[in-house]
């Protein structure tokens, strides 16, 4: 019986295992191999360079920038997207009807092309756009949205937050739905106000959904590419140079596939460690609120 169950387990898991082998394990092994060579994938010859690519990557300003940019994006994007998705989920939660339709509406940006939304934003933020003309005339504000480091980072983070808010709101709405309404009734009898209700009841009880959303959002910050590629090209002065941007420009613009693979491996390790640490911190927070 145990063996049969085991076999069934393997059978049901096999599609994913196969997928993981083909799309994760083989590319990972291939990347590890490439990262130890100076191959550009098209040359008939290459040589093994050992850890030379890794040593060069650690010294590279582009890689150093990518390391910090990921955390800068995290610091701006994660609070922004969490706050926005909680607000959207709360608004939808309070609607008497058509919750599904509104949720779909908020979810639509997730399906929008990053290229198209970036180009629209580029138009909106151009120097001679009505928005900037108004800011200059009304407030004397002349902001270089994509040319100054923080503004560029903020604009990219905002576009991505707009894209993901609806998706995360969907997850949080299901979290809200799973909170036992009796808890609220008991709190109301005890005279709890709306502010206390949110921070003392809703927020801690939303932990499982929040945990998922936080981990997903942190994962996003390590994979930003399209918006940066379209809007800033990683600039100004590497201020938006993400891991993906650095890997892309090394592999496909400079034809340094081996070196780009080394950066990809470093990026994976950084991503893994970051998510692991944040996961542990979240679990600690969950435990303090009674979640095991």
């Amino acid at each position, binding site marked *: 019986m145990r063996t049969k169950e085991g076999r069934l387990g393997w059978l049901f898991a096999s599609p994913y295992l196969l997928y993981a082998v083909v799309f994760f394990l083989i590319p990972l092994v291939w990347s590890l191999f490439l990262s130890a060579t100076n191959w550009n994938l*098209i040359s*008939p010859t290459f040589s093994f360079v050992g850890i030379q690519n890794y040593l060069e990557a650690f010294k590279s300003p582009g890689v150093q920038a990518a390391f910090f940019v990921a955390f800068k994006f995290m610091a701006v994007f994660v609070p922004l997207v969490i706050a926005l998705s909680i607000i959207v989920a709360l608004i939808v939660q309070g609607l008497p009807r058509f919750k599904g339709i509104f949720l779909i509406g908020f979810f639509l940006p997730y399906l929008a092309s990053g290229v198209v939304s970036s180009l629209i934003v*580029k138009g909106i*933020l151009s120097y001679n756009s009505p928005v900037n003309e108004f800011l200059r005339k009304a407030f004397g504000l002349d902001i270089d949205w994509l040319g100054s480091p923080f503004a560029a980072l903020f604009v990219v983070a905002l576009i991505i937050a707009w894209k993901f808010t609806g998706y995360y709101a969907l997850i949080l709405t299901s979290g809200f739905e799973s909170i036992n309404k009796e808890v609220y009734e008991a709190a109301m009898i005890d005279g709890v106000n709306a502010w206390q209700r949110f921070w003392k009841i809703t927020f801690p009880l939303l932990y499982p959904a929040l945990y998922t959303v936080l981990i997903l959002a942190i994962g996003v910050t390590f994979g930003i590419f399209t918006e940066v590629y379209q809007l800033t*090209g990683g600039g100004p002065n590497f201020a938006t140079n993400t891991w993906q941007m650095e890997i892309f420009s090394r592999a*496909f613009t400079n034809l340094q596939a081996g070196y780009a693979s080394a950066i990809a491996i470093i990026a994976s390790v950084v991503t893994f460690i970051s998510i692991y640490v944040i996961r542990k911190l979240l679990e600690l927070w969950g435990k303090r609120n009674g979640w095991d």
Partner: protein
Amino acid sequence: MKVKKVASVLLAASLAVSGLAACSGKDQSKGESSKDGVTTIEFWAAPNPTQQVYWKEVAQQFTKENPKIKVNVSPMKESPTSEASIQSAIAGGSAPTMSENINRGFAAQLAESKALVPLDTLAGWDEVKKERNMENTMKGWQFADSHQYVLPIYSNAMLFGWRIDVLKELGYNEAPKTYSEMLDVAKKLKQKYPDKYVWAKADLADPTAWKRWFDFFMLYDAASNGNKFIEGTKFTGDQKAGEQVLTLMAVLQKNKALLTKQAKDPFENALGIFSDIGPWTIAYWKDKFPKMKYNETYTLSLPPVPDGVDTTNVKTFADTKGLVIYASATKAQQEAAMKFIKWVYSKPENDVKWLEKTSLPPARDDLTTNDSFKAFFDKNPALQPYAAAVPNAIPPMDNAKYNDLQTIIGQQAFNPVVKGEKDPKTAWQDMQKAIEGALK
């Protein structure tokens, strides 16, 4: 029990293999490049509808006259760039026989990786050069190893556009030719229109390598009389000319005559009165900005030069792309590809057709003297200056590290000067040092 285990492993392995096979993009037709005496060549055209139409028509005509060679024309993918698509195709073993849309720098990268066939080693190459009347043009295209890897299809001698309507308001009847004339225009412009700029272009502050072709190299080629910036693995930049270019930019920046923020159609909206213009823009304006009229709203000129430099036959940057044949093609395909090239370029009508469809000046020496092109240029006077400038156009560097090198020009010199962060002398020194380091 053991048999079952082995069977499951085999099943998993076969699934994995079929999965991998399904994912493989390898061109199965390649093995059948020569079937029934017919050689099939795959041709990737630029991802531009007009160029695709041109190549499809030409290929059809060629196959009609040469039934033993079939040319399959398909658009080059841009995922996310055409260079990336070509690299992936070569790596995946699905490269075409030949493609267009290859710039000299990228060709140098491919040539260094032995991915291209040296065209001069194929029979018929000398005749192509002679019949197309492009022997002079080709001299500038020789690579460091003395081979020719690219046949330039078109050569856009990049020109600067000036808003002649605004210049006239400032008291000028023609475009400035020297730096001091340009700075005088800048002074008068800021006095009359403080909200306007001489050059409004966000790319000036962007270190992306290719962007230097359309600012630094246009000015540098003019100031240095076409001096080679890099020769082989040696930095041979003209320091005096380079510093003059950077000083011009520094003075413009100081006088608030440069705008490096992203702006929508700054030249068309006269936010900036000076801009690099390629011939493709003229066709674009016909459609999108009909108010842009040659010699009414704008005029075209060669780049301004430092005072004291001869203002006739000024050199400029050539935005030029061409055809290559890939080394992965079979011998029969390479020969068939050369036959196709020879057929296309032995007839000036095909270049006329190209010019009419794309407005991109064919890279040939007789563009202004051959009667075949006269009717076209008479009908399109705005394109005449481009044809006239072809002999003065300098193609991009042929160094495989051109991306790194041009990024350095931006990061160390051009961008910081434009932003007022470095003085021209320091900027040039920093750039030279970084380039020499990268060339080692």
